[in-house]
């Protein structure tokens, strides 16, 4: 993948990636592990669909089904969709603002490794006595009653990976606030950067409630507290509130970066400036803002009372307005453009009807009295797969095609890309459209089986058939990646020809220091401006060529994360009365805090790349990263 792979041997490359603090390499790590978890989550989805393909099927037992269903949701949201998006943010956002790296390269690496170890920890539950089985929402009464250690894996795993995500969020925020190239005002930032910014702000304020809720869960299950223990005065609704105070912003953490990706694509492939850039920016901010005031729409049937339900219903509906603004501005971006249907654009064009369909069902669910019927039925499943698969997953696939050349220096096959799109797109609608009706016909969600006497057989069969198409699409995408990597035809700075933002102004893949000279930004779509003015050099620069300061690689993030991983095992087995649990907790925490102390005591000042090397580099002589 990287050019020094052949040069320095496989082991060295792996070590280089593991210790890397370079945002581009960390992005690749996110992409690989997020992709892996996507496949795992997808296989779980296939198992769900196989089990439900006919009435009374016995492919999965009742208990196993609940585990598979829970792990599907949890894996897809926390370990696949979010990390994949974080991967693209890492790869692209610093380039878009003309930065040399993110604000805290070390923390960037730490964020990744926390996520990774958290994800591994969670998935180890399959082999260590059973996966979590209380749904991805993990409602407290059932979670406390669940007997296996699955729930503990869920709680501890998500704590670890949650810290990682929070760290990444802060990192991106600081990067965008402090490290923009000269001339890059807030209102000149590309939309993907904007959505990264707002999504990171949501991460910042939404993850703490989740952390606290999980903290309560861990203490209730493992250390004898009574937050959710009704008999001792506890209250399980607290979990629901805290979870959804996090959970609703979470879905916007997923969709906003997706919106950003599509905004880039619409502009590039329509060869046109984004229509209503300002409106798009403010709509993004508004969505983020409202996102915090609607969480109780997941709890209409809990019995909060009509006042709460009415208020939250109205607050929820409002979100349709800024989202609609986005949809129409995208349409008007296409309007009057010169539209090329390259694979990324195909995804973007497929996204609009899919997401609108999912969004309007969301608004229907926001009507509290109607939601009394819809809640916890397959209608909900249909809604959120329409917005998530039709929005987020399509965006991830689109971004994969769009940014693959930028990240790896070679283009994914367009032909296979289009095959993937059509298979996936058709399969997606086939699977989920019909689920709306299943819900309306009375089918509750999270059921491992259904009787032949309920009249749901046919639609479930259709739905399962659709999933097969999606799987085929994904497999072809994998084939595409392999073939492309083997062929390895190199591309230039701006492989799509119509790049508008800074990332297209530098080589693909960019050198490890990104911009040899920090560019000067003269407006929105700054690279387009230079291109239109016929600037041969590509960009105008804000500084003369000079030495560049770079951070050192570090193995400490892996060690810190590993410490928490170890400590979690101690905590997990704590209630089993085993003698080694407390020592293991202590050991793990010692590893983590010890390496933190080491980090703060040892001065790590990084190194400099000298001007001469930069000049050599520019003339095509490869310098090694280190």
């Amino acid at each position, binding site marked *: 993948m990287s050019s020094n792979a052949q040069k320095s041997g496989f082991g060295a490359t792996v070590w280089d990636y593991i210790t890397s603090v370079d945002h581009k390499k960390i992005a690749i790590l996110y992409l690989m592990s997020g992709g892996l978890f996507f496949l795992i989550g997808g296989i779980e989805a296939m198992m769900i669909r196989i089990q439900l393909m006919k009435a009374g099927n016995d492919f999965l037992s009742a*208990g196993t089904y609940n585990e598979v269903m829970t792990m599907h949701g949890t894996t897809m949201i926390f370990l696949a969709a979010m990390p994949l998006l974080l991967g693209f943010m890492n790869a692209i956002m610093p380039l878009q603002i003309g930065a040399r790296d993110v604000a805290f390269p070390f923390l960037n690496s730490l964020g990744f490794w926390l996520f990774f170890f958290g994800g591994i920890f969670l998935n180890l539950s399959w082999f260590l006595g059973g996966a979590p089985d*209380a*749904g991805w929402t993990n409602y407290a009464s059932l979670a406390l009653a669940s007997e296996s250690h699955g729930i503990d894996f869920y709680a501890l795993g998500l704590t670890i990976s949650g810290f990682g995500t929070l760290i990444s969020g802060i990192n991106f925020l600081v990067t965008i606030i402090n490290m923009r190239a000269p001339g890059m005002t807030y209102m000149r930032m590309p939309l993907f950067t904007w959505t990264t910014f707002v999504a990171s702000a949501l991460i910042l304020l939404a993850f703490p409630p989740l952390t606290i809720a999980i903290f309560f869960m861990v203490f209730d299950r493992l250390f004898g507290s009574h937050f959710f223990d009704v008999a001792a005065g506890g209250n399980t609704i607290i979990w629901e509130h805290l979870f959804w105070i996090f959970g609703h912003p979470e879905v916007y953490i997923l969709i906003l970066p997706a919106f950003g990706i599509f905004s880039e694509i619409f502009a590039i492939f329509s060869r046109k400036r984004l229509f209503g850039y300002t409106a798009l920016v403010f709509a993004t901010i508004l969505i983020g803002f409202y996102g915090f005031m609607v969480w109780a729409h997941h709890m209409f049937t809990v*019995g909060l009372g009509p006042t709460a339900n009415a208020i939250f219903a109205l607050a929820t509906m409002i979100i349709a307005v800024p989202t609609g603004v986005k*949809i129409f501005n995208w349409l008007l971006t296409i309007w009057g453009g010169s539209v090329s249907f390259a694979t990324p654009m195909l995804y973007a064009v497929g996204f609009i009807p899919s997401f609108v369909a999912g969004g309007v069902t969301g608004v229907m669910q926001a009507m509290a009295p*109607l939601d009394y019927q819809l809640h916890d039925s397959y209608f909900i499943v249909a809604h959120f797969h329409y917005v998530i698969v039709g929005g987020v997953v399509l965006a991830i696939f689109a971004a994969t095609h769009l940014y693959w050349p930028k990240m790896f220096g070679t283009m994914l096959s367009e032909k296979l890309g289009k095959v993937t799109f059509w298979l996936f797109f058709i399969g997606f609608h086939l699977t989920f459209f019909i689920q709306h009706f299943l819900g309306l016909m009375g089918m509750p969600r999270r059921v491992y089986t259904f009787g032949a006497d309920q009249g749901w057989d*046919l639609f479930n069969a259709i739905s399962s058939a659709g999933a097969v198409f999606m799987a085929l699409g994904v497999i072809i995408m994998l084939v595409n990646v392999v073939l492309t990597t083997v062929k390895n035809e190199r591309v230039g700075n701006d492989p799509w020809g119509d790049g508008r933002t800074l990332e297209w102004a530098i080589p693909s893949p960019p050198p490890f220091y990104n911009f040899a000279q920090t560019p000067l930004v003269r407006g929105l779509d700054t690279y387009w401006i230079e291109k239109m003015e016929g600037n041969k050099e590509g960009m105008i620069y804000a500084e003369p060529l000079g030495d560049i300061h770079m951070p050192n690689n570090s193995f400490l993030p892996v060690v810190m994360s590993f410490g928490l991983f170890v400590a979690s095992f101690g905590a997990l087995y704590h209630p089993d009365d085993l003698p080694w649990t407390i020592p293991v907790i202590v050991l793990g925490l010692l590893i983590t805090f010890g390496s933190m102390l080491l980090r703060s005591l040892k001065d790590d000042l990084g190194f400099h790349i000298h001007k001469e090397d930069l000049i050599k580099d520019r003339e095509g002589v490869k310098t090694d990263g280190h």
Partner: protein
Amino acid sequence: MINGLKKWRLFTLMAALIFFLAGCGREEISTLIPAGGVAQDQFNLLLLSSAVMLFVIIVVTIVYVLAITKFRRSKLGDEMIPEQVEGSAKLEFLWTAIPIVLIIIIAIPTVYQTFDLADTRTMDVEAEDGSMTNLTVNVVAKLYWWEFEYPEQGIVTAQELVVPTDQRVYFNVVSADVKHSFWIPSIGGKIDANPENTNTFYLTFDQESSELEDGVFYGKCAELCGPSHALMDFKVKTMNAEDFEQWVTAMQEEPTSPSDELAQTGEQLFTEKTCIGCHATSGVGTTGGVGPNLATFGDRNRVAGILEHNEENLKAWIQDPQQFKPGNQMPDPSSYNNGEPLTEQELDALAAYLMSLSVEQ
């Protein structure tokens, strides 16, 4: 290359097909065939909102299809650089204002219905003689079955809710263990059974269930509650007020011993094998049983809420309840029968006895 128009046609075709199929939902359970006032209100909201959403989709689709067909590069030529339009305040205003109007259209009935459906003020109204004017049922959800208590009438039943038509029935819903949710799709939306508080709401039943193909409405547990969440079904029998009165009176009577000999052996076994410790057989009582009250077992539509109601299934259930509902709270025979399964004769007797328990004849 995509052909937007073709795709659109495909879509409409599919949509039409599916709407046609949707009519096939079973009337025992479909929210699309409302059989109660609440479900009707909610169905009306569904229609209203679907209309609004359809309008939104149509508008978006028109602009969308035009945009992607008119401005393709293959038509415009590779060299064309479009005008870099910044935006339009007028348009922004338009597509902010119209959705707001649409939202208002659906918001008003939403708020109205939210308060209307939560209006349980008349629940505790007493008639002059001190009796309640309205029927109230206390619903207790338990790992994987439902208990229905009629406090005013002093009776309790399980698995099958029996209610009169054409009047408001109030429900107090609570859980005895983990969270469940009480849902009768064709009668009205759900309400959660929380472990920490009692939720209150009402439903009305407009249609007598005897008119249905299956003789009962289907009720569901709609909140994940463990392995057998999918099997936590209950049934609803609706009847006119007169029949209901009769049913209540029959419930209030002490059950008489069966006349049939086999069933009498069964009755004995029922005590010997300690079934009686968990299962009451008299309709008079209050909630709190470990197992479902079996006073009306003979009138049931299903065994344990899911199995077809016949002796075969009943015997199979008693012999191995876990096989049918994983994780349910009814023990294996071996646990109360000295480690042995029940014999075929014992099962026959028990089944005969249980089938004889009835208040409807």
